[in-house]
């Protein structure tokens, strides 16, 4: 068993990055995620493991620093919150196009625009459907606890390198700020430069006389070549759909009704499930852990056994589109959301279930 600590979600991200053997963090302050870089600067991983931590001049610079580091085979991380993540979209598209491994953490706050600094899940579409220009996806994890904030960092790095893809951890201001106990995994040593060169033969980190030069780019001016790049990316996404889907089912076996929720909403729905069952309503909870790839078959299997589904999100109805596409139209599917930084209460959710699904 690893070390047990009481930590904020944002701190868990930072500590997990150090322990995962991350080579570099590049970021820019924004509420509600500034603790990630604050923790790193105080913890001095440059002395602990040799990890580089740099405060950039903007999110635009941060994501392009990630692109630079990732292009040399290094393990790199950035974190931001919604407006900053919007600024990074260009860079994430380039990372996807150039097939570079990198981890991006979004501690979502309410939008649009400058919005609010309170938690939200309104960046689902942006995270899951691509976000920047061109046909691409990031692999997206949605942690629902501080423990998962920690664990998903390591998982995200592993998958980023396995698939050579940007991976996003889509969390929110509440999980980022709240403190919970977390079991930290043991330190993984940072790879040596020699190990990186061996592990990443595609990376641009200095051409020895024994090989041709490596080029990291997302540009192919030949349409046939660019189509090949796109087909390769799509094949990669199909592989992810086959192998990387993660989800959790809570009390779904005997359920008449179903909540579908991710991240913080799923935490709230867990309590709502208990409250509803105490009232005699047999409801279960389906929680997608990967948002891309979406657990389409799994939610369909559960969803088609129940009388109605309430999709609970801290947005105006985004994941519900994927739930509807997955489950089909035989089952009633409604949305309940609070937005702009409001966190719904478990009671509200039960009431919405009663009004929109059971009574509706």
């Amino acid at each position: 068993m690893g070390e047990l600590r009481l930590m904020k979600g944002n701190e868990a991200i930072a500590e997990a990055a150090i322990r995962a053997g991350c080579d570099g963090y590049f970021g820019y302050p924004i509420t509600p995620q500034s603790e990630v870089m604050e923790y790193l600067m105080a913890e001095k991983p440059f002395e602990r493991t040799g990890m580089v931590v740099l405060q950039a001049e903007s999110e635009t610079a941060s994501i392009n620093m990630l692109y630079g580091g990732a292009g040399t085979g290094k393990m790199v991380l950035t974190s931001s919150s919604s407006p900053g993540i919007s600024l990074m979209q260009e860079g994430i598209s380039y990372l996807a196009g150039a097939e570079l491994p990198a981890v991006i953490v979004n501690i979502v706050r309410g939008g649009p625009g400058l919005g609010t600094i309170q938690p939200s899940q309104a960046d689902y579409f942006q995270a899951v459907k691509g976000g920047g220009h061109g046909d691409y996806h990031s692999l997206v994890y949605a942690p629902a606890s501080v423990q998962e904030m920690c664990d998903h960092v390591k998982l995200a790095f592993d998958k980023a390198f396995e698939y050579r893809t940007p991976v996003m951890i889509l969390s929110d201001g509440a999980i980022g700020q709240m403190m919970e106990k977390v079991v930290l995994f043991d330190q993984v040593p940072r790879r040596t430069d020699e190990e990186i060169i061996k592990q990443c033969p595609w990376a641009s980190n200095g051409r020895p006389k024994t090989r041709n030069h490596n080029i990291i780019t997302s540009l192919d001016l030949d349409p046939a070549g660019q189509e090949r790049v796109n087909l390769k990316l799509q094949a990669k996404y199909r592989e992810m759909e086959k192998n990387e889907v993660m989800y959790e089912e809570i009390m779904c076996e005997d359920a008449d009704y179903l909540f579908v929720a991710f991240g913080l909403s799923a935490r709230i729905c867990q309590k709502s499930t208990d409250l509803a069952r105490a009232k005699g309503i047999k409801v279960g909870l389906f929680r997608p852990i990967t948002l891309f790839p979406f657990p389409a078959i799994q939610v369909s299997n559960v969803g088609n056994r129940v009388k109605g589904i309430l999709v609970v999100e801290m947005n105006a109805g985004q994941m519900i589109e994927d739930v509807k596409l997955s489950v089909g139209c035989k089952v009633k599917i409604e949305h309940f959301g609070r937005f702009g930084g409001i966190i719904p209460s478990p009671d509200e959710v039960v009431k919405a279930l009663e009004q929109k699904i059971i009574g509706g």
Partner: protein
Amino acid sequence: MEEQFAKTEIRKPENIVYKKTDLMVDRPLSYCPGCGHGTAHRMLMEVLEEMDIADKTIGVSPVGCSVLAYDFLNIDMLGAAHGRAPALATAIKRLWPNHFVFTYQGDGDLAAIGTAETIHACNRGENITIIFINNGIYGMTGGQMAPTTLPGMRSSTSPYGRDVATMGHPLKITELISHLPGVYYVTRQAVHTPNHVRKTKKAIRKALELQKENKGLCFIEIVSNCNSGWKMTPVQSNKWMEENMFPFYQLGDIKVDGKLIELPKTS
């Protein structure tokens, strides 16, 4: 084809005094006839060859005419998003501190869309080398006005000449960054005559030697031509450059050993 004046008796490998370095990939350059990019590329590669550091060098190419520089330079390269090359180079140098890292950027890339990345990489004193090709125009997109376009100079988006009252003044970004304490060596050169080329090569060599010593950021501006964009022949464009660009963008060292050089005042 039979060469009329060939001295075949001396055409032996041991008599070669100049040939294109093998660090240039053996393929035709995508640049227009007479464009300075090719010469600037070759000088950079000659320096890497002479210092024997090609295997320890990582280059970052921009968006603009030299977007495909990575196809011509036979070293490991990354193609950056428009203007972001100094951000890439910052991370690369920090993560590979014993490698040589350079960016190669045009005026639109470095002095318009990438101004923030340029200034902050300079201000942090990143131990990288920035090679800045200034031809006063957006060549690749078809000759639009650049941040460095001269007052009155015509381009496709300033067809009646750059009107500084409405379009702003040309940005002397090289002078601007030279005042930052993180910047150690700043010089402005050209590549249109043999002497200028030799000086440029010396400047590149100096910058990379300084990078080895971790002295801070070294910045080499190369004022170059864009005969297609300027709508002139290559020879005319070089003459026009001497008569119009050089008085505004004066050649020579601007900062050496971390100290600013006093330039003679112009009108």
